[in-house]
């Protein structure tokens, strides 16, 4: 193809030299005012390969900018050459900790275009698995929070208790991290025997874990002094940048997509609370995620008792051709609002898929919020914003 065998012209050479010079400017050692610190891409603190270029004045940050793209896999382009069922495998890997939650908005968008609704049983189980992946995702966040602050012990409890949830997901779907279980029209399989009883037992353990973490980490005075008042994001800034999920609710905006945007899922069949917090600081964000994990266990407990019987898959043709149209579905994923804008042309695969991932917006606020904080606070603020590189870079 023409692109691969074109010779490098002068303009491209100049562009390359300019890029090297720009990089060099950033990494100059002897600077008379301030020091430029490069955090990442390989770094224990960032959840993946994120590079943050910070200009420091002593220990205070004057200017910080994240530079992402180290994990860009081109999902939107890849989705255009795949059929609808194949896109699910791609999409699993965007937010790799909240496994099942990635597939749901896409499948719902495709079902919206096809005017197909999954049977009640499938919707119910989808919601249960969705909340389980939320628990899996956020419990790792809670443990990781400790490590970012320096408390090395809670993360082991988090991993230990997360194993139970991953075993549950594996029992139902066959995959711990990438279940690939959702299908247009329903789910791939029904639940295995004994899964319901196991889930109830695991939810109890998770609630104990939440209490332990609250005791060990949130009640700790050092943790509080490290997170209270750090990285305050006021309400209007949060809205403008498109923060979503717990980050938005921590700034006082009462908006939860599960409650406010009805979708063919079973959230309205359970009784649960939306948590908000008036300060927009790091402590608020972490605290809200802790409460949301508890709520998720409550949702699962309520839904698991009332699964309706019935088919697990609606009547869809074997070869799925989605009629022409555009659809947007977004759900309250563990990281925030994740949505898919699916444009279909009546073919086997989508015409264009725009993936709106939560972490992209969450990180875009980093230059704004990291001005004037100390170097240790960079880690605190980024940890509380909670991003996953696969979500940022798609």
């Amino acid at each position, binding site marked *: 193809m023409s692109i691969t065998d074109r010779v490098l012209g002068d303009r491209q050479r100049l562009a390359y030299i300019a890029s090297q010079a720009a990089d060099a400017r950033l990494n100059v050692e002897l600077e008379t005012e301030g020091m430029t*610190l490069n955090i990442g891409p390989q770094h*224990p603190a960032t959840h993946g390969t994120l590079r943050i270029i910070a200009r420091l004045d002593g220990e205070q940050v004057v200017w910080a900018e994240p530079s992402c793209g180290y994990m860009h896999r081109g999902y939107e382009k890849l989705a255009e050459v795949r059929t609808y069922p194949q896109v699910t495998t791609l999409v699993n890997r965007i937010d790799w900790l909240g496994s099942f939650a990635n597939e749901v908005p896409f499948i719902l968008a495709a079902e919206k275009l096809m005017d197909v609704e999954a049977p009640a049983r499938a919707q119910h189980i989808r919601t249960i698995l969705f909340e389980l992946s939320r628990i899996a995702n956020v419990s790792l966040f809670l443990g990781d929070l400790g490590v*970012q602050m*320096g408390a090395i012990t809670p993360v082991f409890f988090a991993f230990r208790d997360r194993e139970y949830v991953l075993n549950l997901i594996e029992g139902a779907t066959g995959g711990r991290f990438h279940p690939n279980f959702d299908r247009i029209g329903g789910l791939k399989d029904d639940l295995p025997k004994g899964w319901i009883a196991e889930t109830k037992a695991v939810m109890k353990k998770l609630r104990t874990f939440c209490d332990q973490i609250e005791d060990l980490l949130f009640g*700790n005075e050092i943790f509080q*002094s490290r997170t209270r008042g750090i990285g305050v994001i006021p309400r209007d800034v949060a809205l403008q940048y498109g923060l979503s999920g717990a980050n938005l609710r921590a700034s006082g905006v009462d908006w939860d997509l599960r409650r406010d945007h009805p979708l063919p899922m079973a959230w309205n069949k359970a009784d649960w609370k939306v948590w908000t917090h008036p300060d927009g600081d790091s402590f608020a964000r972490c605290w809200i995620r802790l409460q949301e994990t508890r709520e998720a266990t409550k949702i699962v407990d309520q839904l698991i008792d009332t699964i309706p019987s019935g088919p697990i898959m609606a009547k869809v043709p074997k070869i799925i051709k989605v009629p022409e149209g555009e659809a947007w579905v977004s759900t309250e994923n563990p990281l925030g609002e994740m949505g898919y804008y699916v444009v279909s042309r009546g073919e086997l695969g989508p015409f264009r898929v725009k993936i709106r991932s939560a972490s992209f917006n969450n990180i875009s606020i980093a230059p704004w919020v990291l001005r004037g904080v*100390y170097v*240790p*606070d960079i880690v605190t603020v980024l940890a509380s914003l909670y991003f996953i590189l696969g979500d940022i870079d798609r």
Partner: protein
Amino acid sequence: MISAVQLSAEVLAVEVPYWGQSLLRVLGGIVAVLLPAGTIVYVFLFKMMSFMQSRLGPMEAGPYGSLQLVAEVGKWLQKEDILPTRADARVFKMAPIVVLVSTFLLVAVVPFGPDAWFTNFEAGVFYALAVSSLSVLGILMAGWASANKYSLLGGLRAAGQLIAYELPMVLAVIGVIIQAETMNLQQIVLAQNTGSIFGFDGLGNPYVLTQFVGFIIFMIAVQAELTQAPFDMPIAESELVSGYMTEYSGFRFLIFFIGEFATAGVFALIASVLFLGGWGIPFAWFGWTDIDVVANWMNLVGPVIMITKMMLVAFIIMWVRFSYPRFREDQLQRFAWKVLIPLSLANIAATSIFKVVM
């Protein structure tokens, strides 16, 4: 002051020439530094931390992972020694040695028994506190010489922190000195073991009871001097990778590693001497009244008792290390200057008043 010849004659019941005694002292010093380091690393770092985190820790090397230390040493020794191109070579190489040398110097004044000591300084406490500050130099050297911005940040943080926490440590110890009326560590041990609490001499008079404020301040200051959590900003692993130790590999890193735990062990030894009664069990149990009357077998049991008390203190240090998140640098400094120093000054005042009154 007992002469060296007399010492060897009494302890070993055999005449050892002077060079032999010096050799024994050197060996003893090495053992006194490395044995606590190794024990602390194995028992607390490998096993206790693992159990607290609901995992088993190293189990492969030797039964229950007891030979893990040997494996670790071997691993570090066979690693490539990397010297960054722009690092200041001489300073870079000297830095770990400075840190370790200060530990060895520190252990020279610690008494292990009535006659089992290396030197018997009259100003033992003064010397100990002075020499323990040498490690700050080593850390700063490591930070600057590494030609790495992370190391530099770590070194600068360490300098500020270690100097800030020297003061509470010194002030906390002054209370003990006032109570013991001497700076000689051996005399302090004696004072504790021959003393009595309100006439009851079954427990001796370990200064941890009367100087509990001083003990707590000393422990906090020791935690900060060792750059252990919650004061481990200089080595903040999730930000600075390893702080001032980032560029070190192979044997040099091993020296830093050993130095960290050896210093922990030696500080624990000093804490047990100053506050917990050192190598002695209350003399009243045996009817001894002075150091000359203490039986000779105490020279063998003394080190064992010291090790036990050291493990107790090290347990507290490590326990706090694994549980707490870390302070931010300015919060750390605020804590030292605004909380610990006034508290320790108040402790000195109270001790002096009690000493004069009672």
